[in-house]
């Protein structure tokens, strides 16, 4: 119907292919405009700010200074050269290390646990619908609420986790989970894994349900043991979906902000790249310096995705499945 009406339109001369492309463009245009406004423009603005000396007190008064926020140096009267900028800022590299450590550990745990949960949910049992809905609850709670809730549960004086662990003799004394630099990162990891495993499980479950049932019937007839079936049949078939899920989570984990900010504010053991960039932008009014850190974070994310897609041969377009 669409094609007939288009053929009778004033573009009668154009080929069908061209007309389709043009129609597609107009259908996509609103989305492109929206994406430009909410994604591309702020991104470009941030990158621009990172090359200026803008301060929060004077947002429109900055001028271009080149790479000074990233790296600059000054020769002291004694002849020694001092370096300044994000790239030589130990606080920044501490944040990078915290973020990378957090992302790798949390995503590994979430992938394994999510897969296990998905395998359980993929089996037929009574009340499966209810369990599937229930397991999503941690994901549905806003991070600020779950972070505060866990902060109370992890409290050293009245927290239920310390109380239970001491009563069950898992700990010999109450731990100050969020205060101690040794356990602050563990506390953040526990909460993040608790919160995000359901999301991972959901993505894995979607992948599992795409595997044709008759393959499993064939393995059953051949009498292959379930562990072998998992590694030789399930895992290879679910891999494309799993890889996409891991990319999603990795991107999310590398830019983590809210959980760290609420659970362990200002702790150098858990400060991530986003946290330190916000601190510079708003607490210290070094808007351009914070923008430079945001730009570096964006660059790292972009490199990570490219590497992951290239090394893992992940098909993000979904064309081969067709």
């Amino acid at each position, binding site marked *: 119907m669409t094609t007939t009406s288009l053929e009778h339109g004033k573009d009668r001369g154009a080929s069908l292919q061209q007309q389709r492309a043009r129609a597609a463009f107009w259908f996509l245009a609103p989305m492109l405009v929206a994406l430009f406004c909410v994604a591309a423009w702020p991104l470009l603005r941030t990158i621009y700010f990172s090359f200026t000396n803008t301060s929060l007190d004077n947002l429109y008064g900055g001028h271009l200074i080149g790479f000074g926020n990233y790296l600059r140096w000054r020769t002291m009267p004694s002849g020694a050269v001092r370096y300044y900028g994000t790239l030589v800022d130990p606080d920044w590299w501490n944040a990078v290390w915290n973020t990378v450590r957090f992302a790798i550990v949390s995503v590994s745990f979430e992938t394994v646990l999510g897969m296990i949960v998905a395998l359980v949910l993929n089996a037929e049992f009574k009340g499966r619908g209810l369990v599937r809905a229930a397991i999503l609850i941690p994901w549905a709670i806003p991070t600020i609420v779950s972070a505060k809730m866990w902060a109370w549960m992890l409290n050293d004086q009245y927290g239920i986790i310390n109380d239970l662990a001491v009563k069950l003799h898992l700990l010999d004394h109450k731990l100050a989970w969020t*205060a101690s630099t040794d356990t602050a990162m563990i506390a953040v990891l526990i909460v993040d894994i608790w919160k995000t495993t359901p999301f991972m499980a959901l993505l894995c479950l979607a992948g599992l349900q795409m595997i044709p049932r008759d393959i499993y019937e064939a393995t059953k007839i051949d009498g292959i043991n379930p562990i072998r079936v998992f590694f030789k049949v399930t895992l290879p078939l679910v891999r494309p979906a799993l890889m996409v899920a891991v990319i999603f989570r990795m991107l999310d984990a590398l830019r983590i902000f809210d959980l760290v900010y609420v659970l362990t504010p200002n702790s150098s053991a858990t400060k991530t790249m986003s946290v330190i960039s916000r601190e510079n932008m708003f607490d210290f009014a070094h808007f351009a310096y914070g923008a430079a850190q945001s730009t570096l974070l964006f660059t790292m994310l972009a490199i990570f995705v490219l590497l992951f897609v290239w090394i893992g041969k992940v098909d993000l377009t979904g064309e081969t499945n067709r």
Partner: protein
Amino acid sequence: MEMKFARRFMRTAAVAVLASTAFGATVRAETITVVSGAVGNAVENFKAYVKPWEEKTGNTVTLVPMPASTTDQFGQYRLWLAAGNSDIDIYQTDVIWAPQLANHFVDLTEAAKDLIPQEFPSIVQSQTVGGKLVALPLFTDAPALYYRKDLLEKYNVAVPKTWTELAAAAKTIQDGERAAGNADFWGFVWQGNAYEGLTCDALEWVKSYGGGQIVEPDGTISINNPKAVAALEEAKSWVGTISPPGVLAYQEEEARGVWQAGNAAFMRNWPYAYTLGNGADSAIAGKFDVTTLPIGAEGDSSAATLGGWNLAVSKYSKHQDAAISLALWLAGPEVQKMRALNESNLPTLKALYDDPDIAAKQPIIPQWKNVFLNAVPRPSAPTLSHYNEVSAKFWSAVHDTLSGNGSAADNLANLEADLMDIKGDNNWQ
């Protein structure tokens, strides 16, 4: 058909607009939005304070409560002000913010000309930047050492004068109470989280050891000295012994939580905890008293960090006149007296220290007059717009030291180098 509809719609709209302007002209009720950090019963109390003003003017006041952490508040406010946000009319500001936020607020010198002579000059001075009165003083603050007089009596210990005496007394009471069956009892609670509050606590340790005040009034960086190192080493020895290891994540309210449940012998906190500690739901009502903070050694003097809150009217407010009127009411003698009675907030008006009602209900207030008059200011004046960064560097160095991440001497030496970078060649300009 469509045209007819459009015309009818336009006519109705025009009538509605006319009606609303006419109505607005007669009533002109405005809603003033105040943003403030909230501790204890602040939200309920605030409603009582603004009620007379609302009845008198017909306007309404909305309170936007913020997290208690002044660091979190500041980040949010700076963002709103930089964006020229007109949703907030009045900001409750910390005593240290005036130099950093002065450009965003209305000059109140003219509006407050009747109030200023009644205030303590040093407090008005702290809120004046380049001749402009940035904010009206609401209440002032200077911390106290809270102690359990019943327990001091029980274990026969004197009120400690030095930090060493405090540690010894705390240890004795803690050991005794734990042996008596309260495993959660601690000697001393304070604010060790990495935030502005730790800057206050640590400034008191350093200053009371004779170690200066981080950056001196003339802009000199003085923090890297043996007395400051000794002060931080002393504080570090408390963590895990007389203070819970979790104290490194405590702010005011966490410390008060442990104290008010009856699980601490000593607490460093602001005067607001005095009323709350004597409240009906408190386990320690009537069992505690306050004194000045301890000193390093004989010959040093006690140091209390000057705190306090003020009201500033946003330059971007659309109801500036009403907002200024509300700020004057809230900072005026009636509300300051109510605050003193309800929340043991220290008034900024001289006359209220001789008020018989306050002296009867809040004996801490007249007693505290000299403490805050001699309080140590944080180095917000000499460091100008860099104060936040200086404070963050300082509390990070202290927090690292307390959590065993580097020695006090190393951390203070690094801090000195960092501060010199921030100071630059132009004395903090």
